[in-house]
């Protein structure tokens, strides 16, 4: 399993150093801990420890109406509230068999692609912070993120905790001026990406630090259920937007960028390319959006009176391609107002499975950036 020779030849008898990176550490992206055993600076063992932010989200949902869990999904991966809402809404729609009006589908695609931009810029910025760049890429990323968050605020009333999707559509129609604002942001975005890439992509230090570091082989990635940009950086062509064609993704022409080696650099660059594809989708969807209902009448009734919504007995698994990977919701209904079982398939939690495999044999500094390239959000990992 571990291909590298992790113990260098030793002439002297040396001692291994056990080190706790986290839970309070600048680069563990929240309260995450890595129990690391070091030989000098080389990682010989690494065990992730999590659960510091665990609030048993799944059990809370079992005591709540279906709508009542919606605002809590915002708080799973708090960078991508919109896609979390969408995944949950899709799972419930699958459970009950609700239809979504045309306009709502378009709004959903707009929101999820904007979320993808938000997430990918932010994570690239954080990755660079882990690499030791003093906040410049992060703040450039945040500058652009801010513009998109303003759009979210205009549409949903909140910048991050959107609570915007509803079963059968979205909660409110887009406000006046939203499409124009979104077009402006999207038109500027490639320019920003160019600037961002000029700052980073050719940077020799970045390349030396990230290339051939934290390689994730294709086979291991598939077997370990790794999803999202991480999987595609390893060269596996699997994007649920294409595979499941959920919502209306089959109407847009976009490509899936694939890496070749699966190291940190590939993960970084695949994200950049994905943003460029998202911009393409947005270009089209903002032009084509039809007028009409934003929420089906059934959906309106559910939002107005959540306790009248009792899905039939059964179960459903709805999944989407969230910016971090496959986000799935597994719901079991017993015919009452509360879900009998509500399970989240959190992409960043499962992507952590192979953290140790990627880090072994590298330096501590590499472990930190490999973690950064996995793109975790503790709200989602710990739930």
């Amino acid at each position, binding site marked *: 399993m571990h291909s590298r020779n992790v113990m260098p030849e030793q002439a002297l008898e040396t001692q291994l150093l056990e080190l706790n990176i986290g839970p309070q550490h600048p680069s563990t992206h929240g309260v995450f801990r890595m129990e690391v055993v070091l030989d000098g600076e080389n990682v010989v063992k690494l065990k992730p420890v*999590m*659960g510091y932010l*665990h609030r*048993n989200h*799944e*059990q809370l949902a079992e005591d709540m109406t279906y709508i009542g869990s919606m605002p809590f999904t915002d708080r799973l991966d708090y960078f991508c509230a919109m896609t979390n809402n969408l995944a949950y809404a899709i799972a419930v729609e699958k459970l009950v068999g609700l239809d979504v009006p045309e306009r709502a589908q378009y709004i959903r695609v707009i929101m999820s692609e904007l979320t993808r931009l938000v997430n990918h810029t932010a994570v690239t910025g954080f990755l660079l912070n882990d690499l030791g760049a003093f906040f410049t890429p992060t703040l450039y990323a945040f500058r652009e993120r801010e513009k998109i968050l303003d759009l979210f605020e205009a549409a949903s009333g909140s910048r991050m905790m959107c609570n915007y999707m509803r079963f059968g559509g979205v909660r409110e129609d887009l406000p006046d001026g939203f499409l124009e604002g979104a077009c402006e942001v999207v038109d500027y975005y490639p320019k920003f990406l160019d600037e961002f890439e000029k700052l980073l992509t050719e940077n020799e230090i970045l390349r030396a630090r990230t290339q051939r570091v934290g390689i994730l082989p294709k086979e*291991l990635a*598939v*077997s*370990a*259920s*790794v999803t999202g940009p991480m999987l595609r950086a390893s060269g*596996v062509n*699997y994007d649920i937007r294409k*595979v499941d064609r959920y919502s209306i993704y089959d109407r847009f022409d976009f490509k899936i960028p694939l890496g070749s080696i699966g190291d940190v650099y590939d993960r970084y660059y695949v994200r950049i390319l994905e943003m460029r594809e998202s911009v393409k989708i947005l270009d089209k969807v903002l032009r084509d959006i039809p007028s009409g209902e934003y929420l089906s009448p059934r959906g309106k009734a559910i939002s107005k009176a959540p306790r009248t919504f009792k899905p039939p007995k*059964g*179960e459903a*698994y709805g*999944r989407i391609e969230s910016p971090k990977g*496959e986000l*799935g919701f*597994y719901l*079991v209904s017993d015919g009452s107002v509360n879900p*009998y*079982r509500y*399970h989240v*398939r959190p992409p960043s*939690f*499962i992507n*952590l*499975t*192979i953290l140790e495999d990627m880090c072994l044999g590298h330096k501590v500094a590499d472990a930190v950036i490999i973690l950064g390239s996995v793109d975790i959000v503790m709200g989602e990992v*710990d*739930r």
Partner: protein
Amino acid sequence: MNDLLRPDATQQALQQRVPGLTLTIEGDALIIPADRLLEVGRFLKESEPYRLDYLSNLCAVDFVVEGAHLETVYHLYSMEKKHGPVVLKVRVPRDNPHQPSVVSVWRGAEYQEREAYDLYGIIYDGHPDLRRILMWDGFDGHPMRKDYVQEDQDALEERHA
């Protein structure tokens, strides 16, 4: 869903190819006897028409009414063939929840099984490192089981009490 992956088709194929196996269908899911899980898993992962190489989701459900049992649900997809899902379920009794671990087939089950163990107490035999993952080490009980008694702390209610 294509015809190959329909529950009845999968059931027949599995019963033909894996000797001595009987499966029942419930909804879209196939109920697998706990002791045959690894065989079934390997077959579905490796046999050509299926190639279900990707364990998308693994989670446990606790049923307390009508034949109380703990259930582990597997959602299998194929990254190679881009099809899926095939849903497998394994049922174990609530008082002695032992079943084989599928980590040797799908590495992605590692943390998900740890989570199911932590929250539901299902013991996955053969798991390389079955420890609590979300709750702390000294925690007593398995909080997602339906009979777990929750602490009720509503700050506002307390104030008005």
